[in-house]
């Protein structure tokens, strides 16, 4: 078991290494570099040389990669070009904001998704299923930029209940941020919940049709006991991985929603730094997003392993 965990962590680290290489090589291949972007028309002669020296761009690429990587491991991603401030300081509040948004969506969305999925499966083809399924399919198919815009129109502009876009400083305190996130959370949770509810529904239906559930019925197990003991533990196991991917997606920045609501999270930072050609920040973001995906998937796999007796013994025996 321990061996397995170590193996998975190592594999994750290798993945991160490859991602960092790809982004580094990618940014190298792109025409121009940080200095030409920064200096614009003055990018020649003495000034350019000075800039290269200052940013340490005058050494071979592999040396830069190594020194970048060594620093990155210590949490130092260098300087952002736009504000000339350490990337660490740019990222900090953004990560916090994204976390707030993501956790709000998770705490609201996942329980609702589970309940809706289970209800629709248990009342399959009956009224609750037909009603909820219609709504979820609808919610799934509307892209979030439409639903977000509609939310702004109805709730912020017509009803004037909540602010339509987020106009707060990036490093605002949690309490001040709270009213601002309600609309983005609704927009994200809608699409996420719909997807997950559909997934849970099909998983529960599949388990309900299994021979062991039929056997439980024929054994005389009362309905709800059967649902909780025999159906749900088996049906929700595959859901763990989907939940993990959703969380990673949320943390990785829900780019479209953040842009629509002008929300100061990681997603918007991605867009901003790409359009500003702020390559060091892009690099840092790529690594951070990759580590979020890798670690959450790792966690989900380990959880599945713990909860599924079949996999557990198999691994131990190996």
């Amino acid at each position, binding site marked *: 078991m321990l061996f397995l965990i170590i193996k998975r962590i190592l594999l994750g680290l290798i993945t991160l290494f490859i991602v960092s290489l790809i982004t580094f090589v990618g940014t190298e291949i792109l025409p121009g570099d940080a200095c030409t972007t920064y200096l614009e028309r003055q990018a020649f002669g003495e000034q350019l040389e000075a800039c290269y020296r200052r940013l340490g761009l005058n050494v071979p690429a592999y040396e830069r990669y190594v020194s970048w990587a060594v620093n990155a491991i210590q949490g130092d991603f260098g300087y952002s070009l736009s504000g000339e401030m350490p990337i660490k300081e740019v990222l900090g509040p953004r990560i916090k904001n994204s976390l707030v948004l993501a956790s709000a969506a998770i705490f609201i969305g996942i329980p609702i998704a589970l309940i809706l999925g289970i209800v629709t499966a248990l009342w399959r083809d009956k009224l609750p299923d037909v009603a909820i399924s219609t709504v979820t399919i609808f919610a799934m198919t509307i892209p979030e930029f439409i639903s977000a815009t509609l939310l702004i129109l109805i709730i912020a502009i017509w009803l004037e209940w909540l602010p339509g876009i987020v106009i707060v400083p990036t490093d605002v305190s949690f309490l001040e941020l709270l009213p601002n996130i309600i609309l983005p959370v609704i927009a994200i949770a809608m699409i996420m919940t719909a997807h997950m509810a559909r997934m849970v529904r099909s998983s529960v239906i599949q388990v309900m*049709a*299994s*021979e*062991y*559930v*039929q*056997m*439980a*019925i*024929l*054994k*005389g*197990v*009362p*309905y709800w006991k059967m649902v909780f*003991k*025999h159906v749900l*533990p*088996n049906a929700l*196991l595959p859901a763990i991985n989907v939940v993990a991917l959703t969380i990673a997606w949320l943390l990785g920045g829900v780019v479209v929603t953040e842009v629509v609501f002008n929300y100061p999270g990681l997603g918007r930072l991605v867009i901003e730094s790409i359009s500003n050609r702020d390559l060091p920040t892009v690099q840092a973001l790529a690594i951070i997003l990759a580590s979020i995906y890798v670690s959450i998937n790792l966690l989900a796999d380990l959880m599945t392993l713990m*909860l*599924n*007796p*079949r996999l557990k*013994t198999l691994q131990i025996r190996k």
Partner: protein
Amino acid sequence: MTEIIQKVKNLSIGFKSKKGEEILILRNISTNIKKGETVGIVGESGSGKSTLALAMMGYVKHGLYTIGGECEFNSSNLLKMKNRDLEKIRGRKIAMIPQNAGQALTPNLKIGYQIDEALQLHSDLNEEEREQKISELLNKVRLPSPETIALRYPHELSGGQQQRVAVAMALAGTPDLLLLDEPTTGLDVTTQAHVLELLNFIAKDTGTSMVYVSHDLGAIAQVSDRIIVMYSGEIVLEGPSRDILKKPIHPYTYGLLKSIPKLSLAGLPQSMPGSQPQPGTMYRGCSFFDRCDFSEEKCKNNSPQLEYLEELNTSVRCFNYKSLMNHSQVNQTVNKIKTSLEDKEILNLSEVSISYAKQKLLDQVLNRISDDNPTVKDININIKKGETIALVGESGSGKSTILKSIAGLLRTKGGIIKFDQNRNLSSDLKERDPNDLRIIQLIFQNPDESLNPNHTVEEIIAQPLKLYFGLKSEELKKNIIDLLQKVRLGEFYMSRYPRQLSGGEKQRVAVARAFAAKPDIILCDEVTSALDVSVQAAVLNLLQQLKEDFGTTYIFVSHDLAVVRAISDRVAVLYQGRLCEVGPSKDVYQFPSHPYTEVLLGAVLEPDPDIKPKLVAEDIVEEKPPQKGCSFQGRCSRILGDICKSEIPPWQITESGNSIRCHIPLKELQKDQIN
């Protein structure tokens, strides 16, 4: 007059087709189950036998509904009962033992919990007493060390153990009626015989009534007092077990018994033409009319009623049963298999060993084999052109593994597989040239899975023709039609998809596909075990006919010794990937035998109440072959002692050329085995 425990009255169950027609699965079924008796319900897949058993618990599957009639238990109709009331009957009064216990036990719950659940629901015992009872039940179904078994998860048990747990779970509620839905199908022959013996013991011990549903007349013969034969959703014959098996007076049962291969009779049994009509097929007359040898003009337009014959205590649905009553016994005639053996070796396996163990990195670099105890080892077989050689053994005996290696799906770890004395086939698929691939073709067990559901029959058969011979347009079509005719399917099958075919027809398409490549060797992996009994004989006959026409060599893998007896010239018995016995078919089936062959032969179930299986060895499951000595040492009842554990036994050859690998001298083996 014995007490009637369950009364089925005029029961019809069906479903609505997409067109809105009502399609019947069960048609007007009436029967009674008496206290203490075991009733066997036999029929092919689709005959409605499982639906009937489930209805006896008041359970109708999703999508089906009750059209009419009732299942009366304790003078109330189960099919009209509320779920809450049914919960008090299910498991407590009527319990079910499912077909596939591996699937029917909830994977995330421990064995002990699942039995405890039944006890909690259906008894008043307190926790301590329940724990006691769980041990007692596991003991009763003869599971070793009940305390540890209770703490295991279902997947940690073998198939036979899982089935025993299912029996223990059903007994937990001390039911008055036990319903068994194919409880031994899917188990190994020896395990099957043991489970049946256990069920017989429980029936006697507890006095429970049983309804035993199966397609296997052999299993039914061992347990039932009375047999109900179902065909196309109707009861066609019902009566005392012995009479039905010895003197069946319905043409379907008669034909069925004639088409089952027997151990005592070498050669291919006669097949029954056609197949059971699909539910919803419209016909005015008897549902068996198309396939019946005894039909008359009136059978075509009038459907016979179930008629009760007082003197025989039998009900029969046939106009013509009297002509069958004159047949005193089922006189089975078989077509002797003809083999034109050329004295030419076509495939030679020498010292072949195969391992599933992954090579460690270091071993890969050094290109050496680290597994000193591979799954399959020391296989030496010479196969002559035109021969049918069968590989037999239980699951895990390595028979399919050997097939895979011959086909090139699995690389051998050692030894040489040589085709036609000069072509080396020890390599895997990637290294074989197209002609090497063409000469060996496979037919799989389950045609549902081996035929691409999105291809028409034409496309399926066209593939090898295009691939190996580059045939096009007219010529291609002509060849396909030709092949279809060879497997006795008409030209109109070309545009059909596999789902539009019956099981037997699908397997014929698979056979046609194999022959399309004009192979020298065909590997048949359990080709008849997914088929209904009445269709099995037809496929076997077809294979034999094709072999005689083309001079093909078959390597036939099967767990069914009677089928092997029917079709093969030579048999190789395998245990744990090691050969035990190789010899001409008729000699392998006679003593002296390797002790393992003796176990296998003893466990065969014949559709005859007078032939009881002989249980020679325990049905333990061994996970790995032993490091040293005889592969069968762990289960052998004739074990001599240390020599069997330390030395690999020598090959002993009988006068007729049968080779047995055992330390016991042949004479002694023979002496013991005849008694």
